[in-house]
């Protein structure tokens, strides 16, 4: 576990830009309006019986101007490069070569978007091939697009952000489902607070509209099927609804932001993560330990929780009980935007920062989620992985730490 972050004066970390795309649309306003209005967009038909939250229809041209660049990417990369561009725009650093050339980047990525038609044709032909090994080699050599590899490689989301947006200070890609998303933000924050970095782009992207990805999670029985229900109410009918989304944050030391006149949305005051063994009670114990580490006082006024609960049992039930015991006002965004796995934590930090910047929490259509009858000053963001990994972040209004 990381030690608590104690930032020196001027090294506290601000969120100065967010870039978010999901089934609710793109950008802060679209997300705010949809969440506040209790809207969701999901698709129960295309991948029936699986329910997914598809990306809202959008053109990528506004952030990826060259069609040639778009063609070099698979959808997960396009979503991410687009969201990264929105974050850079939001922070006011888009096109600023001086800053981008020393901006650090940590991307949480999956990858491996496959050519389903090629895979299907090979699997169909293999049993009939007189020489199966030869058949596989021939088909792969002839049918795989050479550039598909680059569109699949995990670190090529970061690579494409470097190419399209010019972020080149550093480029690191973390893998490992939800934990990758938590630790990407944790490390970026730790580096800024320690003076190892002044400004960083951190986040991730997923295309959830993929059968091979549904399959990976369906092996373990983690995917939501049949009837939709809010994440807290899935009970024994548990699972997560895979989502397409991209989420990036621009994190920056307060001193660096002040020097360039950038306004913060909120302060990222802490991130902590751990790995429990997921025996009964392990998620609860992990959350307790992380909560103590981040140190928000129970009963803090103007505080809410933006939960990344997946809807998977029993982790979501343990988180629900934990948050209930702390008597906190909660919003589980997974009900509305689904589960994006790697980018989910950055997305929820972005939504927390957005709500704090507007001074109040968005409403909830979920009867179990109470309103917050006071100004929102801080938020705890949870990120409990569907299978492994637990994380918390503390987001505060600037000046309230």
């Amino acid at each position, binding site marked *: 576990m990381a030690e608590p972050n104690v930032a020196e004066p001027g090294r506290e970390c601000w969120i100065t830009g967010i870039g978010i795309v999901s089934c609710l649309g793109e950008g802060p306003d679209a997300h705010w309006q949809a969440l506040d209005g209790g809207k969701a967009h999901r698709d129960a038909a295309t991948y029936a019986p699986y329910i997914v939250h598809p990306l809202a229809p959008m053109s990528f041209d506004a952030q990826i101007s060259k069609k040639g660049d778009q063609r070099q990417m698979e959808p997960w990369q396009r979503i991410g490069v687009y969201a990264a561009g929105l974050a850079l725009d939001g922070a006011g650093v888009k096109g600023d070569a001086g800053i981008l050339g020393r901006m650090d980047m940590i991307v949480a990525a999956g990858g491996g978007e496959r050519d389903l038609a090629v895979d299907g044709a090979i699997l169909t032909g*293999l*049993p009939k091939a007189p020489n199966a090994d030869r058949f596989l080699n021939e088909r*792969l050599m002839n049918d795989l697009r050479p550039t598909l590899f680059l569109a699949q490689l995990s670190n090529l989301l970061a690579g494409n952000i470097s190419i399209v947006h010019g972020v080149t200070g550093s480029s690191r890609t973390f893998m490992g489902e939800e934990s990758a998303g938590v630790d990407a933000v944790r490390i970026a924050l730790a580096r800024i607070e320690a003076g190892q970095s002044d400004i960083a782009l951190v986040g991730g992207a997923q295309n959830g509209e993929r059968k091979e990805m549904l399959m990976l999670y369906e092996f373990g029985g983690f995917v939501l099927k049949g009837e939709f229900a809010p994440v807290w109410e899935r009970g024994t009918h548990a699972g997560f609804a895979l989502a397409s989304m991209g989420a990036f944050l621009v994190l920056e030391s307060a001193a660096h932001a002040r020097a360039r006149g950038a306004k913060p949305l909120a302060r990222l005051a802490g991130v902590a993560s751990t790995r429990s063994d997921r025996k009964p009670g392990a998620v609860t114990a992990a959350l307790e330990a992380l909560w103590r580490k981040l140190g928000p006082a129970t009963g803090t006024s103007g505080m809410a929780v933006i939960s990344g609960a997946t809807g998977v049992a029993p982790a979501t039930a343990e988180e629900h009980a934990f948050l209930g015991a702390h008597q906190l006002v909660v919003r589980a965004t997974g009900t509305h935007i689904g589960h994006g796995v790697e980018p989910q934590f950055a997305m929820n930090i972005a939504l927390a920062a957005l709500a704090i910047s507007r001074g109040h929490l968005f409403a909830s259509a979920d009867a179990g989620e109470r309103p917050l009858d006071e100004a929102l000053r801080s938020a705890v963001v949870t990120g409990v992985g569907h299978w492994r990994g637990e994380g918390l972040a503390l987001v505060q209004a600037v000046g309230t730490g």
Partner: protein
Amino acid sequence: MRDKMGRPIVVVTGSGLVTSLGAGKADNWKRLTAGESGIRAITRFSTETLKTKVAGTVDFVPVEPLSAPDLSERLAEIAIEEAITQARIGTRGNFPGPLFLAVAPIELEWPQRETLAKNSGANEAVGYDDLLRAAATGRFQPFHRRFVFGSVGEGLAEKFGTQGSPISLSTACASGASAIQLGLEAIRRGETDAALCVATDGSVNPESLIRFSLLSALSVQNEPPQAAAKPFAKNRDGFVMAEGAGALVLESYDAAVARGARIYGVVAGCGELADSFHRTRSSPDGKPIIGCVHNAIADAGLTPADIDYINAHGTGTPENDKMECLGLTAVLGERVKDVPISSNKSMIGHTLSAAGAVEAVITLMTLEEQRIPPTINYQVPDPAIPIDVVPNVARDARMRNAISNSFGFGGQNVSLVLAREPA
């Protein structure tokens, strides 16, 4: 003890190594300094119709069933065992620090897809709907655990009892160096006194090989296999895929001394700089490579004049070796002809995600033994690369500071500065 910038000095108190030449540092060192090659004809799968038929596979480690994550995890275990045994740190199953793991991206492989297809009940054409139906039976539950991206990191964190959330990372062929960099930074921040930095790759399988082959990145000189990897030679024609793992126990100097640990070397600095020119090619002006090496030297509080040896990325592709020479010439100036610059990949091939850590371990041995393993297969010098590659035969040399370079697809550049002793 702090460095010039007032940061904790980070030392290596244990390391471990597996390559196609063998398991363990002693065996590898003997073979590396003898100029032996671990590259061989691929026997793991049929290479019929493939252009490239050689690789540096690790065939002496039995893994059943065989998949890239299974073999990668096993290779990492062997390297970690050696590193922890040497460092005498922690207790069995309880390493007192975090895990930073460089590992290739993981996905389901062809044998599993075929198993699913057979169990899908599909009559004629097989598609992903059929595979999904098979997945939904719950009979293939272990495939989830094995093929999620965090799979290998989870297994290693469990087995060795590392602290906190294990970080799995990929910066393509620079991944191993990035793992060391993350450990270095965590210790410098004072977050931990120790870190386990590991890089592993066991992904020589048909599709991985074909993907690189389709990008024309691989050597197609299959006969004899041992001569396929020819870094810096004029007749170089691509890299040779290979497997292996490297593990390092990093500690703050103070913590190492306090517990009486032996210090085997220093991670003095690290630099990185991404390249925005192209997905697979370096910027023709070499600026990102030059900046990366400069950043590493500056981070170590040194100047280019302090660098005595360079463990090159040296893949043996026409492009890499030319650009690396260009970059090093810009950094070292006239000294570029005098500073030995060798490539371990001539013997062990390109261990991909593992390379940065594998070669860091070898570089540390090079400093410790004051002897440089050669660049073998250097028969036809390239006039465009007028450097001392330590051709074909190992050589003794006096060295204090060395650089280990790692560059990867996606514009990834990472350089480490390794030193024999604290400055």
